[in-house]
């Protein structure tokens, strides 16, 4: 108890510790609170939260590449696609109609790691020929790669059903599962549990677990020799090489490890949505994930996670809900004329707000970058090392 108190006191001014605590408590309490607040009808929101977890995982992975190693990746969705398609092909009836004529049904828990390995392999494959490129050239190659991969999956119709995508993917199973009031049911143990779409709480628990494991893994990597090598390469590649860092291996590992998280995320995404289609992995997805990382604070794991949660809720909750909200607001204010489409071009407020969403999204990106170019929760350590210097007394005291 005393140690706990000391831990709290030591970290009470550390934004990262606060962010982790808030996110952990929030994640644990979220399903219960939402179900309670919505009178047991919060399934949709819990499901949405589980989907947002996919982006949290993706942001954690991209943060390794962009934030830690400083390699700008504009095609991260490609690895997400590779992870999803790997799961789609290995855990559905898809391959019956392929030249193999034989369905493969690998259990989710194994396919999760296969997806991870395949994505990591793809990362290394992309990284290998491009490592001698620096800075923006590398970014452009990843951009090209990100454009090619979804089109490749779309065009390989024999294997992937083309534009229709792969549907009816297998769901994860567990020998037993505990359910309770947090999912607005009685406390009970279910045997031979299957993750089905009308039980979002199970998916939610699964993604939170995946994120938890990933965060611990990435934090350990960050503090490891490899993590320090990444940061050395990020700050000055030549100096890092002179200090004995193997820059080629370091960068390759950044690509591979960064990509492996999207393999994780891809398998979960495919299993939950039960559909993998090439349209889900466009350039916009890469850009969104990158924006999440940069908005949250590059190189800082909780920063990237907060950026992901924030941007996801704006893009997939607030913006889609805004037209109906505006319409209801106009109605309650007695300004129903706003809801009528008029012949002089006014489309009605709900349609108007709907059309505004590109602008709102753009304004959010520009606004946050102008106000906080370093991101919402930037890496403190990095700021200290670069701005104040490690020999600065005050820096050492507050660290």
């Amino acid at each position, binding site marked *: 108890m005393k140690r706990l108190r000391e831990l709290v006191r030591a970290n009470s001014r550390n934004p990262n510790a606060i962010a982790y605590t808030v996110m952990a408590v929030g994640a644990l309490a979220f399903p219960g609170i939402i179900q309670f607040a919505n009178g047991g009808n919060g399934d949709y929101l819990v499901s949405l939260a589980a989907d947002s977890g996919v982006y949290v995982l993706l942001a954690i992975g991209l943060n390794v590449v962009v934030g830690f190693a400083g390699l700008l990746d504009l095609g991260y969705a490609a690895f997400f696609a590779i992870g999803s398609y790997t799961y789609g092909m290995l855990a559905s009836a898809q391959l019956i109609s392929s030249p193999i004529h034989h369905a493969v049904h690998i259990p989710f828990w194994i396919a999760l790691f296969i997806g991870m390995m395949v994505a990591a392999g793809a990362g290394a494959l992309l990284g290998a020929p491009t490592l001698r490129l620096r800075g923006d050239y590398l970014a452009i190659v990843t951009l090209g*790669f990100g454009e090619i991969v979804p089109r490749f999956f779309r065009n390989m119709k024999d294997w992937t059903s083309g534009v229709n995508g792969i549907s009816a993917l297998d769901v994860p199973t567990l020998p037993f599962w505990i359910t309770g009031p947090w999912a607005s049911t009685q406390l009970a143990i279910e045997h031979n549990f299957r993750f089905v779409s009308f039980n979002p709480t199970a998916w939610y628990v699964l993604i939170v677990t995946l994120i938890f494991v990933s965060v611990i893994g990435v934090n350990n990597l960050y503090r490891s020799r490899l993590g320090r090598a990444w940061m050395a390469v990020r700050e000055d590649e030549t100096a890092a090489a002179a200090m004995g860092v193997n820059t080629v291996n370091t960068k390759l590992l950044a690509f591979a490890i960064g990509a492996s998280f999207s393999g994780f995320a891809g398998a979960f995404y495919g299993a939950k949505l039960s559909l993998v289609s090439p349209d889900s992995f466009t350039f916009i997805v890469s850009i969104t994930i990158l924006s999440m990382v940069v908005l949250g604070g590059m190189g800082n794991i909780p920063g990237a996670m907060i950026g992901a949660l924030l941007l996801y809720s704006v893009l997939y909750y607030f913006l889609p809900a805004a037209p109906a909200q505006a319409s209801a607001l106009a109605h309650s204010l007695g300004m129903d004329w706003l809801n009528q489409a008029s012949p002089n071009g006014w489309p009605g407020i709900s349609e108007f707000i709907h059309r505004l*969403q590109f*602008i709102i*999204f753009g304004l959010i990106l*520009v606004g946050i970058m102008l106000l906080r170019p370093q991101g919402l929760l930037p890496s403190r350590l990095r700021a200290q090392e670069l701005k104040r210097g490690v020999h600065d007394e005050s820096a050492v005291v507050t660290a």
Partner: protein
Amino acid sequence: MIGALARMPSTLRTYGSSQVSNVIGLLIVAGALALTLQHVLQHDASFFFQILTIGLADGSIYALIALGYTMVYGIIELINFAHGDVFTLGAFISLALFPAFGIAEGKSGFGYVLPLLAVGVITMLLCGVINVAIERVAYRPLRHAPRLAPLITAIGMSSILEGAMYLWRGPFNLHYPDLLPATRLNIGGVSIGVKDLIVMTLAIVLVVAFTFFINLSKLGKAMRATAQDRDAAQLMGIDINRTIAATFFIGAMLAAAGGITYGLYISNVAFDLGFITGLIAFTAAVFGGIGNIPGAALGGLLIGLVRAFSDSYFDSSWTEVLIFGILIATLVFRPTGLLGMRVPEK
């Protein structure tokens, strides 16, 4: 054509790649040319020339857009994602100006050359002003911020521009008046569209004019100096902010001209058109050697040709894969692009 360029004297290669990768690159290019030739020979010559002119016309539009990318990248090392949307904006603004100048569908003829030129000039100036405003608001305050910050604001500005056009004209494809003559010239048994020739000429005139401007004028010199070393240029008394603003202005003018040309050529524009067109034009800029103005023009033409040939002789669903494959191959085998100019790492 690509092979011949790749064999150019090595003095142009300011940043040489290893011999092995050069050989591999040449082999890939030779293989692709041989494959294309085989397909070309299966069809008759008139089809070939038709595709060639379409490719060149398409490519000259890409060249116009690519110039803006390459100039902005050369001077502030920013991939200006909003540039493709300035191109679309050019098409949209000109479309809105047409009625005021009495231009409408089916009214082609020499009497409409002057109004069309007037619309072109106004649109180019408006787009230039808008692009300078974008630079002022979204990029200039972040010039000393972390490198990724302006990239994100560029994406944000792209979204805002697309949103503004969506708000303005809705999500539908807009019809752009078909003003260029549909007649075809018959030269030695080969039929060539007048439309294609006009588009090509327009683009070539603009590109050449701006290349001369940048090579010869004082402002052009300031631009090149700023691109080489911003601080040194400032010490020499160059107004950096003005020079960068001028770069954005010129880039947007060319993109707007590209937008009008695209509208006249394809007769169909939509608010999100600039996105993929911009990416392809950017590929063209990289292909030609980013930061290099003749390179961007050449890259644009070549990408246009690749697109036309791939669409007609091969499978059009693989065209974009091919184009982005070229992008990757260029950077892996010849990071400086065809005409080579290494932008120094800052």
